[in-house]
């Protein structure tokens, strides 16, 4: 049969559209099936959401020609300070300090607002001739046919291609329809997310503060604003989210501290319940999973998006290489290369973030002492600290070419 595209992508979020654009720029005919209307993707104002893009992630955007559109509104993260504290008390004397200057001239990463990322992706899509974006469409069924896979959309339309990629998040329908089971658990915690405007300059420093209820991240944005990701027990988070802005800030203030002067809200407030969900396989006949559809991890170190972008880099590299050999890109030998590449990394990251969270979301005195000593020890050893920094800036492991800034074609 003649197929409608080389690749069908289900999901038009940040990872899905980055994948669509990367594959289209690599010469594949791509159709992206997106449940949301384009207008929703193109909200003008700042809504308070932002992403911590590791240096390696920014390199992929540079390699696909998108970084120039993102850079003017991106805030470099020059330093990361990690400390252990209880609200209302000074942090323990032991803390970790990562300065990008120790590993090279580049920052550790960048903070990019959601609205800027979405607009840049939508603009780039309109230039990509081999990318078709189908907004307001959902998949109702998928069937493996000889040589490919066929999906039926809610509108009644059918589409076929040699390969179907699920970028449809933690409750991936693509994975479910392919019979791929998931493992995972809820943390009973919820992240409260907001943006804060403040008086004093933040100097491009990101703070990760480990509080008994869960971690608090303060991430520098442009123009004296920071993104805050603040994790609490889910019941407590619901109470706080229900408060008015003044009440919300009253709870945040003692946790946040006064190092940035007076603070106020600079956008909407969001909550994200935390869970770990990993697909038992990342591939099936003619199907591959990318991003949260493959692995929704605890966002403790802000590595969710970066892990998804690593999937994008690895899958695009595997597919371009397979195409150059004339292989059918939807077959098991090709897709297994992607799964092998990404599964080990993912398991390591999921375990590390889970262990980290269990260790730090705890007020046990003994544990607190151990982790204080641990952080002091890491901080005192430059070698170990550099290893952590490479991990945080996404430069460790078997890095896809695109994430080293090397174009695929």
């Amino acid at each position: 049969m003649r197929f409608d595209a080389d690749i069908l992508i289900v999901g038009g979020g940040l990872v899905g559209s980055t994948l669509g654009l990367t594959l289209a720029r690599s010469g594949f005919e791509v159709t992206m099936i997106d449940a949301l209307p384009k207008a929703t993707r193109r909200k003008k104002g700042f809504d308070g959401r932002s992403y911590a893009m590791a240096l390696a992630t920014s390199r992929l955007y540079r390699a696909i020609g998108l970084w120039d559109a993102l850079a003017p509104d991106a805030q470099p993260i020059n330093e990361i300070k990690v400390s252990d504290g209880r609200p209302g008390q000074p942090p323990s004397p032991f803390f970790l300090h990562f300065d990008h200057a120790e590993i090279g001239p580049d920052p550790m990463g960048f903070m990019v607002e959601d609205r800027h990322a979405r607009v840049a992706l939508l603009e780039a899509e309109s230039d990509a001739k081999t990318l078709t974006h189908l907004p307001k469409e959902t998949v109702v069924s998928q069937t493996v046919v000889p040589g490919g896979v066929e999906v039926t959309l809610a509108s009644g339309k059918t589409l076929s291609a040699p390969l179907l990629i699920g970028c449809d998040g933690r409750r991936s329908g693509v994975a479910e329809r392919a019979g791929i089971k998931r493992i995972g658990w809820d943390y009973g915690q919820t992240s409260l997310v907001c943006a804060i405007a403040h008086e004093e300059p933040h100097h491009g420093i990101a703070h990760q503060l480990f509080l008994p209820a869960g971690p608090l991240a303060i991430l520098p944005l442009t123009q004296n604003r920071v993104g805050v990701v603040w994790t609490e027990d889910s019941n407590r988070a619901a109470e706080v989210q229900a408060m008015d802005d003044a009440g919300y800030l009253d709870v945040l203030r003692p946790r946040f501290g006064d190092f940035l002067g007076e603070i106020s809200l600079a956008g909407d407030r969001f909550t994200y319940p935390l869970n770990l969900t990993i697909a038992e396989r990342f591939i099936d006949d003619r199907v591959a999973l990318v991003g949260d559809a493959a692995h929704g991890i605890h966002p403790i170190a802000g590595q969710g998006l970066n892990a998804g972008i690593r999937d994008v880099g690895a899958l695009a590299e595997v597919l371009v290489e397979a195409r150059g050999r004339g292989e059918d890109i939807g077959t098991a030998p090709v897709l297994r290369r992607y799964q092998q590449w990404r599964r080990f990394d993912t398991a390591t990251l999921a375990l590390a973030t889970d262990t980290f969270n269990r260790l730090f979301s705890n007020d046990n005195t003994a544990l607190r002492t151990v982790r204080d000593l641990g952080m002091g020890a890491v901080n005192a050893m430059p070698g170990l600290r550099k290893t952590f920094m490479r991990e945080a800036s996404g430069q460790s492991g078997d890095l896809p070419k695109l994430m080293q800034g090397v174009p695929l074609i």
Partner: protein
Amino acid sequence: MHATANTVDPSEIAKFEAMAAEWWDENGKFKPLHMLNPTRLDYITTQIAAEFGRDTRQPKPFAGLRVLDIGCGGGLLCEPMARLGATVVGADAAGGNIPVARVHAEQSGLDIDYRHTTAEALADAGEQFDVVLNMEVVEHVADPLAYLTACQQLLKPGGLHICSTINRNPKSFLFAIIGAEYVMRWLPKGTHEWDKFITPDELFDLLGNAGLDPLDRMGFVFDKIRWEWSQSPRDLSVNYVTASRKSA
């Protein structure tokens, strides 16, 4: 669909579809061939790209090239060549393979000209190609020099000939016997006869006598620990491949 395929009885089509599924089942009876295929394709695509100045990172890099695959079987090499943009003719002396290969190409959305014929018959008809793929055939023919001469005649001046076969030494003898259940399934034409196997030096001589300039040789080795094939420029003791060119 090809005109000849339309004359086939519909009940036969179902049989061909089942046979195509068998040919293309990577865990089925052609598993060893599927395992070797990426390594063979790496060699073939690299040689073609180098010879004709093509960039395999781009889509359809072999557009404009006419490629012949002799002993095409189910189309395991023809389909990749067609996907790379080449105009492909697949020839097999075993007529049963032709409708099977056609059914699968149709399912894959590829246009490939499969024919029940031989290299000699194609050469007599004056067919000309930029590339002739001659993989695991030469050890099965009665007169290798006559056969390779036909392959040479099928090439346009400056055309590329890629020929793989099995070396003749005690190791390949053991491999061919012990590995017989794998090896003998690679081609449905018949059993290998060890004394027909050809050493790399003998093959280079034969290619030269057939009017081809030998360019390159490479071993395909099976790693029993990683359970996969790879190229080896040093180990040509069992499976190996050569590239040669017809003078412009």
